[in-house]
């Protein structure tokens, strides 16, 4: 089973830099995938 990081702003606004930082952290942790969800509900910083 592949292990991934599911990132998103559905639980609160995140900046573009937050997403990129999490993608880098996911790769450094050796995960297989990084999934992003940019919702319409959250305010985009």
């Amino acid at each position, binding site marked *: *089973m592949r292990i991934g990081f599911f990132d998103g702003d559905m*639980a609160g606004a995140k900046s573009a830099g937050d997403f990129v930082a999490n993608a880098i952290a996911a790769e450094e942790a050796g995960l297989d995938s990084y*999934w992003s969800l940019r919702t319409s509900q959250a305010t985009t910083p």
Partner: protein
Amino acid sequence: MTMALAAALRPEQIEVGTNVTPIHPRHPAALAQQARSVASLTAGRFTLGVGASHRVLVEHAWGLSYDAPKSYMKEYLDALVPLLAGEHAQVAGERIRANTHLAVPDAVTPGLVVAALGPKMIDLAARSTDGITTWLVGPASIADVVAPIANTAADDAQRAAPRIVAGIPLCVTSNAAAAHQLATSLFGYYDQLPAYRDALARDHLTSAADASLIGTADDLTDRIHAYRNAGATDFAAFPFGTTGEQHNSLALLSQLSKEL
């Protein structure tokens, strides 16, 4: 998808995907054009996740029709799938029309998965794409509903075994009560959406907080293994909680990625 591209350019190896891009605000040709461009810039590491979203967003936030979301998705995929592959799309549906192809130099066909919670959307996704992505669906539903329907549909369509992505909030913590309370606050929105209420009910749950994985690393390891045993091909966790708890959750995912 812009965010997915930005996230993909710094890491060099990890697969990056959208989970998910709502289909209603975008014509399939526009979405395919963007996805093929991202795929070409990420050397095949990109997977496009699409979904029909929810009536409250499509109608109330965007002012579009949410009528018959499954048939709309079918027409949408009839156009999107060939366009992603660099082929001509010829669709004259009730709501989607397309007569075009895309020329994107050096393009790589991206992976494609569809957000699906109910049986009909699961069947459609497995017949037409690389697989299904879920959110807040537990191992019991994956074993009893998602995997059997998806595998049967893919087999019937003579496609490879479908990808089944299980997306779940994760908090590695020694304070489960506080984390559950936080999950209720963060994810309570999903409890109000009919598609999630139905999916949670199949797992005999009533809230997204109850579907979240909360506990110590030792407790959660077996619960994550249950997703694999149920038929999930991917476990995608949304780390939440304090900074320390999120760090611990990522550490658990790192450990599991080496084991599984």
